[in-house]
């Protein structure tokens, strides 16, 4: 199996190794005695993640990004495959063994306000993981740590007794980050953390995540549909389509020389804020929408929208090929297109 990483991170052992990870949701068939059909939300994903590294996960809505993130953290039970945390498999282990590991990985979500309990003060919200995982800490110590973390993420510590609805979207995301960081985790899955924020606030949050990463040697899985932000924050990028990895490569390779037709199409569809460049750039326009994940196309799942599809694509599933030190592509014809 070929799994790679950004060159400078490769010396360490991976913090996370994901092998052939699958999440199939059973969907009731039509008719009384029909069998359940599997919806293959994630269908065989492989990658390693190293300390201090950010992996971007991109693809259209419904391609399985959030499901992958949750399955890695065991918030959804995978249907198959392994997730190794610091070398040890965590899929299917008893709750009692899982609980102590939970403090090492956290998640932050897209809609900051919706994920904060409206009846708790932000101090209580940020403190909650501490109270759960470090019950031995005294009240004063918890308060000190919460205030320190609030200051660190750019919230005024004197706001500790306020409620979430008193904060703007960007501030709520800071609260979410403070809560995620309070246990000093090793990994944070960021599920569209800036998508709901204004442009001017997005940059503040991205910078904060990058600073925290450097400070704590954090690993990040950064789920996003915004390929411009991903280019900025991620070391490596995984492109998903209908639960399958189309391309996995380090940032420079994927943006300078994308090899998969889907990656090329995604990148070329992102508008560039420069009229001259935007109006003269070459584009690969995809027709149609994502096919239903309940009946994915045979062979290459991308073939119904691929401008380069040929006969072979309908019959053979392309395997993921390593095309360079830092780039893997799942396309039969990656050499010719």
């Amino acid at each position, binding site marked *: 199996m070929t799994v790679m990483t950004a060159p400078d991170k490769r010396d360490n052992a991976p913090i996370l190794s994901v092998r052939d990870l699958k999440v199939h949701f059973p969907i009731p068939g039509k008719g009384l005695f029909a069998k359940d059909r599997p919806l293959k939300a994630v269908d065989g994903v492989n990658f390693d993640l190293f300390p201090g590294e950010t992996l971007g996960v991109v693809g259209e809505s419904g391609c399985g990004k959030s499901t992958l993130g949750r399955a890695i953290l065991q918030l959804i039970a995978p249907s198959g495959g392994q997730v190794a945390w610091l070398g040890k498999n965590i899929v299917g282990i008893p709750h009692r063994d899982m609980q102590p590991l939970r403090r090492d990985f956290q998640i932050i979500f897209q809609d900051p306000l919706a994920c904060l309990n409206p009846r708790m003060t932000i101090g209580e919200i940020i403190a909650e993981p501490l109270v759960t995982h470090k019950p031995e800490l005294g009240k004063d110590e918890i308060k000190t740590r919460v205030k320190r973390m609030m200051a660190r993420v750019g919230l005024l510590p004197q706001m500790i007794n306020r409620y979430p609805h008193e904060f703007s979207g960007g501030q709520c995301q800071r609260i979410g980050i403070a809560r995620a960081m309070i246990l000093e985790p090793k990994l944070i899955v960021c599920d569209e953390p800036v998508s709901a924020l204004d442009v001017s606030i997005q940059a503040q949050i991205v910078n904060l995540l990058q600073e925290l990463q450097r400070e704590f040697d954090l690993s990040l899985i950064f789920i996003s549909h*915004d390929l411009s932000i991903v280019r900025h924050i991620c070391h490596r990028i995984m492109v998903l389509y209908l639960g399958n990895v189309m391309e996995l490569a380090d940032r420079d390779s994927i943006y300078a020389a994308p090899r998969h037709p889907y990656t090329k199409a995604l990148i070329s569809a992102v508008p560039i*804020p420069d009229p001259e460049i935007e109006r003269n750039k070459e584009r690969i326009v995809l027709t149609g929408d994502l096919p239903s994940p309940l009946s994915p196309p045979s062979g290459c799942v991308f073939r119904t929208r691929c401008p380069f599809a040929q006969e072979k694509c309908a019959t053979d599933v392309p395997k993921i090929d390593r095309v360079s030190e830092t780039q893997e592509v799942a396309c039969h014809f990656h050499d010719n297109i």
Partner: protein
Amino acid sequence: MTTNHILTVENLSTRFQTPDGEVEAVNNVNFHIDPGETLGVVGESGSGKTQIFLSLMGLLAKNGTSTGSVRYKDKEILNLRSRDLNKIRGVSMSMIFQDPMTSLNPFLKISRQMTEVLVEHRGMSEADALKRAVAMLDRVGISGAAQRVHMYPHEFSGGMRQRVMIAMALLCDPEVLIADEPTTALDVTVQAQILDLLRDLQKDFNTATVMITHDLGVVAGLCDRVMVMYGGRVVETGTVRDIFYDSHHPYTEGLLKSMPRIDRANEDSMFAIPGQPPNLQNLPTGCAYQERCGYVMDRCCVERPLLKDFGDGRASACFREDGQ
């Protein structure tokens, strides 16, 4: 004065009465638009973009009132009675909303929703109206339109619903099309299809288009002129080239700099405008941008900069370089 402006907005202000006092969502806004032209309206959420156009379409929430003047060609339309406004609304002037489900009725088939306006305003027969509806769906790239026209909104994907909305907006060949963040909820791939569609339609029908968006990339690709909003006011206007290559207002400059770019390798950290967007309920005295502005001077905190006209549709509201 005779002009060929299809829409002229003068001194438009919109206020909302709330339990916490009055909110001035739109403050003394002026602009016009000509046939075949695309005007981009940009700004952060809450800056008043949507309310400008809801005001002129007579679609404001009940607690809102507007003052000023809005002329469609030569006819004053602000605060017109619904009955009179309906002759223009959805006919000569159409609006596409960010969330298609707000303007599609979930319980009615698309066919019914599309034919109604044609039968009512164009006096078409049901059969002709259906034909036109199918042709329009076809035009916006919905395959199998003849069958799909009989489906319900929830049977379409997000991208397809947005196309249905565009098809509906175009049914009566409007002269003005107002698109409020029509692609914000869509994937970039589908966004690219919709933007191509809007460009083509404009070529074919010479429609005047207003594109409300917070994505400067969309503006760069589509618009002729741009209006930048901040705190309910217009802070800068100009051609797309003026705005992108020679912006005058510090907020415009900040917005442009904080946009991540897919065509550039990354520098160390992103440029970020500090602070929060202003709260319309208690705007500071002076310039609304003062707390976030890198060029703030004493004067900015006591006096409000007026929009100063530099000619050729160029204007900016800032003390810094206008010599006010």
